[in-house]
């Protein structure tokens, strides 16, 4: 375990940004935080969470897949990928850190998504343990420990000091790289902080949220529940929940005609959208009820069914804060609780 004074945070960032990109949560000018490429002097946001999760580093909202260039009637096919630079994402919370393992299960399973894989290989994740959880947090329900996040290296922030500990090879390399600004640290303050946060966790309003009623084996009972109707009744069909979600991984592949050719790109899509997975006849899920159900069934039933019981939610609470009509996975879980028993 190493440490540095928070006064010297800029030095740490400077060292970390050497020869690559460093992203930290910074204020976005509208009172919220987003991961921003660090430049000298940029301060880290005090916000618990960024609006968008850290998934975009590996699964960006839009990504060029292939270019077709046309000259008259000739077509040339071009792979737009260039050699990626190494990058570090700093300050990822435990919930987002867990989301990467969920995304890995999708994108790194056979057939491997080479675009995603390449980004994963080039990225180092430095996580940050939580010290001030909020009312919308329920990561513990999905087995995430906010005081001990996963990641290549883990940071803990106390009043005036930052502690850092490498967890993987990449993490060790990161710590090596910034070692010049660090001093040896003692685990005691970290443990004290962990204990303090653990005191708070049971007091969170959603601390008792249970996943017992959900899982891969609960398919038909949940699917057929009459309660989906009232749950989905006021859903606007927007993609806010999907786009702020660290685990949603659906995308659409589209062609954009540039006038000189075609750029084929993929972009985030949302199962809440009426034009999602459109086929010749339209969206196979005809009503908002079906689309709404899909999103939650995927996270709570289908995903665990295909991934050894792992749920497709990490309890970050972004959808709770951001849903325009305040409908969210917690309300769904509470309403459906017991439906499968």
């Amino acid at each position, binding site marked *: 375990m190493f440490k540095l004074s928070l006064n010297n945070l800029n030095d740490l960032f400077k060292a970390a940004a050497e020869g690559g990109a460093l992203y930290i949560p910074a204020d976005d000018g509208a009172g919220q935080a987003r991961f921003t490429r660090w430049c000298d002097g940029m301060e880290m946001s005090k916000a618990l969470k960024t609006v968008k999760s850290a998934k975009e580093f590996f699964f960006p909202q839009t990504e060029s897949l292939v270019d077709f260039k046309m000259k008259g009637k000739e077509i040339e096919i071009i792979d737009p990928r260039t050699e990626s630079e190494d990058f570090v994402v700093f300050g990822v919370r435990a919930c987002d850190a867990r989301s990467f393992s969920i995304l890995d299960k999708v994108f790194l399973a056979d057939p491997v998504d080479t675009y995603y894989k390449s980004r994963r290989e080039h990225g180092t994740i430095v996580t940050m343990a939580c010290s001030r959880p909020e009312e919308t947090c329920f990561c513990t329900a999905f087995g995430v420990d906010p005081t001990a996040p996963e990641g290549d290296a883990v940071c803990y922030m106390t009043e005036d000091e930052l502690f850092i500990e490498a967890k993987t090879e990449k993490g060790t390399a990161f710590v090596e790289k910034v070692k010049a600004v660090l001093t040896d640290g003692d685990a005691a303050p970290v443990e004290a902080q962990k204990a303090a946060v653990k005191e708070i966790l049971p007091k969170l309003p959603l601390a008792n949220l249970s996943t017992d009623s959900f899982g891969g084996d609960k398919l038909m009972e949940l699917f057929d529940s009459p309660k989906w109707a009232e749950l989905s009744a006021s859903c606007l069909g927007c993609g806010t929940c999907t786009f702020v979600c660290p685990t949603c991984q659906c995308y659409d592949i589209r062609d*954009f005609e540039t006038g000189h050719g075609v750029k084929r790109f993929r972009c985030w899509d949302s199962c809440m959208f009426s034009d999602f997975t459109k086929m010749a006849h339209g969206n196979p899920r005809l009503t908002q009820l079906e689309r709404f159900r899909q999103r939650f069934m995927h996270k709570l039933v289908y995903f665990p069914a295909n991934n050894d019981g792992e749920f497709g939610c990490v309890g970050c609470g972004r959808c709770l804060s951001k849903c325009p009509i305040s409908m969210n996975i917690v309300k769904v879980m509470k309403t459906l609780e017991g439906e499968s028993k």
Partner: protein
Amino acid sequence: MQVNEKEFKPTIVAFCCNWCSYAGADLAGTNRLNYPADVKIIRVPCSCRVNPMFILRAFQRGADGVIMCGCHPGDCHYTTGNYYARRRMTLLFSMLDYLGIERERTRVEWVSAAEGAKFAATMNEFVETVTKLGENKRLEDLRCKEK
């Protein structure tokens, strides 16, 4: 025109209504009145056919200036079309200005079938204005600019 080869040549789209302005442009041709080749005309039945999305589309695809020409107010072939067009374009152009897009990149001009000279003069002036502004950067789509 003393245009040097390397000088910036803008792309200008002119939407012209079939009955007045397009005929005015034809008259400019008949009278051999010069205006820069940067101007390309798209024929529409009436100025009220011009949808704001056509104008944005032009900027997206690389236009540096867009001008809409119609019959003079009161002379519309369809009686009222240009009145609606006038409101739409006033509001749209005001909005583009508000978003920080240079206001000189957009223009509306009423050109009658008899005003070949006005058509040519307008185009000369507009091309000059847009040339001074340079390339459209604020409302561009980089994907369309990659050659």
